[in-house]
């Protein structure tokens, strides 16, 4: 037979196939990112007949919103929800340098390295003693070891902080969000946004002071490569400006 060229495959419809795939992906995917505020729901516990713990007024930053979407922050009615973040910053900052018992803001305690070490040693001894007790409840042992971990964290935080004392806001100081059932999600989300903004600002400033880097950069880097030294930095920020938010389940 005479030599013949192999006929070329017609690739004219390749574009059609590619377009088909392209359009499929365009339709089934989405570009917009999901952005959200992550919160923790408190664990459900059996409540024995116990009166609730008394919390001093000064330690509560109360944000209230009612059925008609009116806003109240601490004791004052507020028209513009944009101002909440400044109030939260004020709540954290007012007594940060010097405690003034006459105002209505949470107190700070300052703890030195020696005190932390003493407490750590004591907590460790306590945990071991509990573990060695016969018939000790596992939950109590776990709890004691969590206390030890807490002191360890504080020790590390103060080493990193590099100052003589570690300032800590009162352990009961918290932001409390009280909405009613018909409060619009719009306002609820706005409150969350303002509080998040305030805590972020506080941490950002402190982070720039101590590490010369913004909190945002550190946390983003930590999310990428899980560097333990970044984790320590973030922990310190968490101790200096804890984000304790309580969302109260509405009754009406």
């Amino acid at each position, binding site marked *: 037979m005479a030599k013949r060229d192999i006929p070329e495959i017609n*690739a*004219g419809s*390749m*574009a059609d*196939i*590619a*377009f088909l*795939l*392209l359009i499929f*992906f*365009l339709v*089934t*995917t*989405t*570009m917009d*990112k*999901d*952005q*959200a*505020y*992550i*919160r*923790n*729901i*408190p*664990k*459900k516990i059996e409540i024995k007949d116990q009166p609730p713990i008394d919390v001093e007024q000064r330690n509560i930053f109360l944000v209230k919103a009612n059925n008609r979407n009116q806003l109240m922050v601490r004791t004052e009615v507020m028209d513009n929800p944009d101002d909440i973040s400044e109030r939260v910053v004020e709540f954290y900052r007012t007594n940060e340098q010097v405690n003034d018992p006459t105002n209505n803001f949470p107190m700070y305690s300052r703890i030195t390295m020696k005190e932390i070490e003493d407490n750590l040693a004591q907590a460790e001894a306590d945990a071991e003693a509990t573990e060695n007790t016969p018939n000790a409840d596992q939950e109590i042992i776990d709890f004691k070891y969590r206390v030890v971990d807490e002191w360890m964290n504080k020790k590390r935080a103060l080493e990193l902080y590099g100052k003589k004392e570690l300032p800590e806001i009162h352990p009961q100081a918290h932001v409390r969000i009280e*909405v*009613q*059932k*018909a*409060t*619009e*999600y*719009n306002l*609820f*989300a*706005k409150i*969350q*946004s303002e509080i*998040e*903004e305030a805590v*972020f600002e506080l941490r950002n400033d402190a982070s720039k002071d101590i590490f010369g880097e913004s909190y945002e950069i550190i946390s983003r880097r930590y*999310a990428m490569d899980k560097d333990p030294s970044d984790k320590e930095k973030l922990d310190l920020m968490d101790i200096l400006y804890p984000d304790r938010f309580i*969302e109260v*389940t*509405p009754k009406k």
Partner: protein
Amino acid sequence: MSKFRKESKKDAPGVNTSSLPDIVFMLLFFFMVATTSKESDPSVKVTQPEGVRTTDMTPFKQRSEIDFMYIGKPINPARAAKYAEMGMEYMLFMDNVAQSTPDELYNVNAVRRWKLDKFDSKPERMSEPITGVITCIKADEGAPSGLIFDIRNELQEIDALTIAYAVKDNGGI
């Protein structure tokens, strides 16, 4: 003057389209990389409120560690009217739930079962306990907060304690 003589009539040559598939494939790969797949198409309409300093959920989503929930008015106007009459303007939609009848939208009572089902169907390698599995609520601007707290209570019962409120990040503008 013959230099500028009009040329005899010729057909315009066809444009070479042999590189068209390459261009289209390039586009295709761009979209495959730059987007994430929709978790589901909710049958309620959600317009998210705006906020700042949010957490990006995308890194979790790639590993499908998030269960999504939507609160909004039903898109179907007839259905919206019907539920509004019953005093339920805002409805809940949970992803990956097959609706047994087209008219059925889910109420808060189904949350527990849904969350546990989803947890059971997750692959083994996601060893995260249910406490840490994020439930993301995407609610409409006008949705009542009471509904969100109802969901919180349901989740608290089964120890699914991480929740996320979705908003649109406006970048602080």
